[in-house]
């Protein structure tokens, strides 16, 4: 069995590959819904505190660097794009293209994380990291700190999901190099794609609630 025509990895409990593909993508979609509720809890808490302290949250958001934020959003959208192309190439069966796009996705993902951590460091430098390091000249420092508490928790949880995503992408790359991903059986990359696109969706909402409110006075 040369690696070219990899054995159809049909697990024993499935009747046919179509059923196995649908099961895999349904399973990942249900996991994505549970992740939506995970981030949902944080969005609800943010909404309640934003209703209570609109000025403080606007002040906090004004300290965010909109340039880095929007660049980061564009970066993540590009990585989503390359991920989609990777899945598309897998469906077409051209393994070389899959490798290229997977590497591109991972590279752009790392760019996102680098930008993200420079932002964290910048906040740390001007005393905006919540907890002991926080002090702000704002009139009500407690509530501005609350904004940064949510900013740090939500974006760090998102960054954690990025690291998991990078791990998944590496695993997919290795399977592709081993010839396990073919036009007939490409579950692994499709599921990884779903996960990666979901992380992009979460960032789209994080960008909207953290960077945008502080733009206007």
């Amino acid at each position, binding site marked *: 069995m040369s690696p070219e025509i990899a054995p159809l990895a049909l697990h024993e*409990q499935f009747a046919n590959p179509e059923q196995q593909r649908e099961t895999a993508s349904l*399973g990942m979609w*249900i996991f994505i819904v549970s992740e939506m509720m995970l981030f949902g809890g944080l969005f609800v808490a943010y909404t*309640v505190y934003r209703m209570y302290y609109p000025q403080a949250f606007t002040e906090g958001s004004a300290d965010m660097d909109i340039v880095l934020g929007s660049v980061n959003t564009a970066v993540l959208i590009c990585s989503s794009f390359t991920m989609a192309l990777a899945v598309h190439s897998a469906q077409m069966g051209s393994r070389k293209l899959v490798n290229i796009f997977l590497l591109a996705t991972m590279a752009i993902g790392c760019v996102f994380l680098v930008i993200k951590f420079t932002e964290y460091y910048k906040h740390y430098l001007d005393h905006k990291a919540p907890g002991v390091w926080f002090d702000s000249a704002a009139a*009500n420092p407690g509530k501005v*700190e609350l904004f940064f508490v949510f900013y740090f928790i939500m974006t760090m949880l998102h960054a954690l999901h990025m690291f998991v995503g990078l791990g998944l992408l590496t695993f997919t790359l290795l399977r592709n190099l081993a010839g396990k991903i073919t036009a007939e059986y490409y579950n692994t990359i499709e599921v990884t794609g779903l996960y990666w696109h979901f992380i992009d969706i979460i960032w789209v909402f994080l960008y909207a609630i953290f960077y945008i409110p502080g733009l206007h006075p």
Partner: protein
Amino acid sequence: MQAATSLVPKNYLTEKQGILSWLFTTDHKRIGILYTGSITAFFFLGGFFALLMRLELLTPETNLVQAETYNKLFTMHGIIMVWFFLIPSIPNTLGNFFIPMAIGAKDLAFPKLNLLSWYVFMLGAGITIYALCRGGVDTGWTFYTPFSTSYSTTYVVAAAIGILVNGFSSIATGLNFIVTIHKMRAPGLTWFRLPIFCWSMYATSMILVLATPVLAITLLMVAVERLAQVGIFDPALGGDPVLFQHMFWFYSHPAVYIMVLPGMAVVSEIIPAFSRKPLFGYKAVAFSSIAIAVLGFFVWGHHMFVAGTSVYSAMTFSLLSYFIAVPSAIKVFNWTATVYGGAVSWDTPMLYAVGFIGLFTIGGMTGLFLAALGLDVHVTDTYFVIAHFHYIMVGGTVMAYLGGVHYWWPKISGKMYPEGIARLSAATVFLGFNLTFFPQFILGYLGMPRRYAAYPPEFHMLNVLSTAGASILAVGYVMPLFYLLWSWKYGPAAGPNPWRATGLEWKTESPPPKHNFEVTPVVTYGAYDYEALKEELQLVS
């Protein structure tokens, strides 16, 4: 060795031997047994804490243990019973074992994920046991802030992380069940031919997947607040403690349906089997399970009627809590209608199931008291609430769990349990349970608050009754441990279908082979269709 194995029948137990074959199995049946072992251990650990609490409450003063220790006892009793026994009890044991068999599949959709779920469960349990050994937690299983974030000096972060990790094991199981029931049913097994066991397990899995993440994020925020000294829920630093209650109960009320729906699932299997009669109002019972799962997410505010939420939201939650009472009532009426006119046997599973119906009815009706805004003001946070949820959790889920274990014991172990002593233990459990918890309704009405290590002397007599009941209940629970394990070794062999029931799981041998069915069955009849299976089961109407 070769000669020996040819004598021993090929089934999932004798497929591969040795500890490694158990620790790295992806067979849903073995993972079900692994879970049964773990949760039985936790059940007796939590039960031990409960006994210590009842012994302490024997006298109005705190003389057996100090108040601080009592606080840790009721907290660990709560945490262990809720997350490490009740939630995994029926889904992860009987559900894991029988969902694939009931739908005619070889295994769950994601067998490796199923094994990962058990390891994540044990990891979460390990972290929580670490918190217990380092002195336990004294915040109550509800972790109310700002006490849990700013004033408690115990291992709250360790317990929170342990429960958070346990949450991911629940999500994995829920996800597995939903995909399996959707995608891996045997040919001919349409949704309305599915046994109610699968409907209720499907409803439970919906809640598991949708609610557990909110618990994970809430406990993560408590842990972050304790570690980074930030004020998410602490008013002194700008937070709002009532928001924590919203987020906690958004998970915890659906969680109580995660605990009781599987109980209903098992009872909906036992009642038709031992009445030799199809379940009355199949569609009504099936859709009421889904209705409970969906409505369960709209009612969490009834835990917070006196917590300071707005009157409008309190009224909305009270109204919706009454909406969700309707499906539970429908189920009880349909079970009763099933027993009426059947050929009813008094075997142990049936005793447990009928006990479930009776106690769940009392539990549900006292829920009507708690959902009424005016009544709740007086009885919330008292022993009335303790009795209410123990009637549903212990009177309901634990009896249904024991009933289910006895009902499917022949299929799991291939052996019959001793009927006589089993009925005696069922009667002991029923008697001990009522003696423990009915006096607590009266205590609650008279105003004894919950979580009190010491209480005024006028509540003394009822507490003595309750402690007496608890000791009888303890005996009732220990008995099955012995005679079931005894029957695993020395019990008489049980044929494929000792109860002549109609489920697909009874069509294969006991204990079943590794892939459940030699040839995947084709289903051509309804869920509990005795008429169609009359000849096969040699029944005479």
